[in-house]
């Protein structure tokens, strides 16, 4: 599902080039949960952005959902993100003005080309919310939800398009222990259904559901 080969990435900082990734090789297969751990600033989020086709300024070869990212147009990258990749962020990143269901439906609204009928999309959104146990909160705005509920809405949003790849950036970072456990269990369930899950975290508990736990340090995975 993901195959990253010799990935490099550097940024300019005060006129100085800082190399964040120095030849990272990583592959995540369908049904696999891979956890990437590392200290803050080690490049975990950068790696996730490259795997999620959000950052095109890398060196090396990245193949996501069977497509090489190199050479894809901005529109094609956007379409790939929309159809094949689900994102879960530490800070949830819900749109505050939208109720939970509208947040879940966002990927459907953003789909390029012919749009799915509104009613069918809504049904799928409700099903995604039900999957994370929040069917009753469909009309609630994010400000009325707890941290765990917000993260589950974010996961439901990631599931709407039935992505082949789920990318999670510190998904339990803002959650208490019990809520964090339920989110981790959910990732395990998704992997069992065939989704490739890549989680970057610095929390050990995520490793319990992970097929592999890798550490990113000095720009390299080990």
């Amino acid at each position, binding site marked *: 599902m993901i195959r990253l080969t010799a990935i490099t990435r550097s940024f300019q900082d005060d006129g100085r080039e800082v190399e964040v990734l120095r030849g990272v090789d990583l592959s995540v297969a369908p049904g696999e949960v891979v956890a990437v751990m590392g200290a803050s600033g080690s490049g975990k*989020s*950068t790696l996730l*952005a490259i795997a*999620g086709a*959000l*950052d095109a300024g890398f060196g090396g070869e990245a193949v996501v959902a069977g497509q090489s990212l190199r050479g894809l147009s*901005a*529109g094609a990258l*956007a*379409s790939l*993100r*929309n*159809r094949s990749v689900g*994102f879960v*962020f530490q800070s949830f*990143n819900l*749109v*505050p*003005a*939208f109720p939970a269901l*509208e947040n879940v439906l*966002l*990927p459907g*609204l*953003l*789909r*390029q080309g012919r*749009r799915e009928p509104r009613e069918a999309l809504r049904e799928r959104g409700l099903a995604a919310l039900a999957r994370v146990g929040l069917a009753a909160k469909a009309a609630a705005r994010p400000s009325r939800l707890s941290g765990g509920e917000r993260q589950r809405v974010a996961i439901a*949003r990631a599931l709407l398009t039935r992505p082949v790849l789920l990318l999670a*950036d510190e998904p339990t970072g803002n959650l208490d222990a019990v809520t964090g456990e339920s989110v981790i269990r959910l990732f395990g369930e998704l992997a069992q259904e065939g989704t490739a899950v890549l989680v970057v975290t610095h929390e050990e508990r995520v490793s319990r559901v992970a097929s592999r736990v890798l550490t990113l340090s000095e720009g390299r995975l080990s």
Partner: protein
Amino acid sequence: MTWRSLLALAWANLRADPGAALVDVLAAAVGAATLALFVALGLGVGDAARRMFPADARLVEVVPAQLSLGGLLGGGRLDESARQRLLALPGVRAAWPRQNLVVPVAAPEPPLGLEAAWPPGMTLQIPVVGVDPSMVEEDTRRGVPFADPAEGGAIPVVLSRRLVEIYNKTIAPTWGIPGLPAGLDPVGIELPLRIGVSIIPGKSERRILEVRVRLAGLSDRVPLYAMAVPLATVQRLHRLYNRSDPGYGQVTLLADSPADAPAIAAAARRMGFNVDRSELATAERVGTVVRVTTGALVGLALLMTALAALAIARSRAASVAARSREIALLQALGATARDVRAMVLLEALLVGGGGGLLGMAVGRGLGLLGDLAWHGLLPDFPYRPEAILIFPAWLLAATVGVAALSAVTGALTPAAAAARVDPARALS
């Protein structure tokens, strides 16, 4: 991403910060209302000025020179030969002669049915001018032929359109008599006249003719002060009263286009005639004043619209800066830079269009109030317009269009900034 989806997102974004959206809408509304009011005022004043000073820029009024070498040598006389020479000038489409009747004419009694509008015992001395029927052809198509009648027949006359207005708004109120009834079609009204009668003692003719005149139409091309009859009628009366041919008092030249008029006027002057451009010059001066004033007001209104657009631009820019994470999220979920740009422009279009609609309604409402005040506070006077503010449909549409377009133009920079948001950086 479909336009419907973009519109839904833009609308949701505006609803997320209703205070900012309302301020933007109000800013656009102020600009739009000002634009609508000022343009409507310009149209209203322009319309009143055109009715007060009707002028056809294609007309050149040629009159005999008061004193000229040509006149002393026998030239400069406006007669049929001169008219033919004027007609032969390049760019002249028609040359309509006009001859004053030198026999006095008086009206001793009112037109039938309008006795109330005639002061008791009044005899009205009426100047009469003969005009070429083709000059007033368009104004005399109401069933009364404008041609010299047989002896004893009613003589068709044409009056100045302005005379009726001045009679109703000035003469009638001054004399304390009713004006012409509203809705009355004056065409066909007959007035008994006595040809040869003068109110100046000793100036009446020995031969007095009792005739009737019948109104054939109203025209802007006949003098305000006189009753216009067919030229042939004047010539017949001159023969009847043994008057020598006085020549034409004026020849009206119709140019092919307004651009030809100055050259025709210059050529007529070279032929030894004078050109009376006083009415046209007045109309042109009034028109210029109206255009300059309206232009200044519209300029001011456009400036206010531009300021509103700047306010919207600043507001949208602040909104984009505050929403950079949301915008990045949309990109992560599949939005392209073009989608993001379009979404911000749609937001501006919604506030600009909404403000334009509100401003149009407010402007129209203020216009109605202004008209009410106009009617209530100002006395009736000639050419007083029914509405001082004119709101044609195109103005209402343009008001909304300009407001929306200026808001979208102002949002171009914030939209470009939104499209440049780096999702990887904004979401990390």
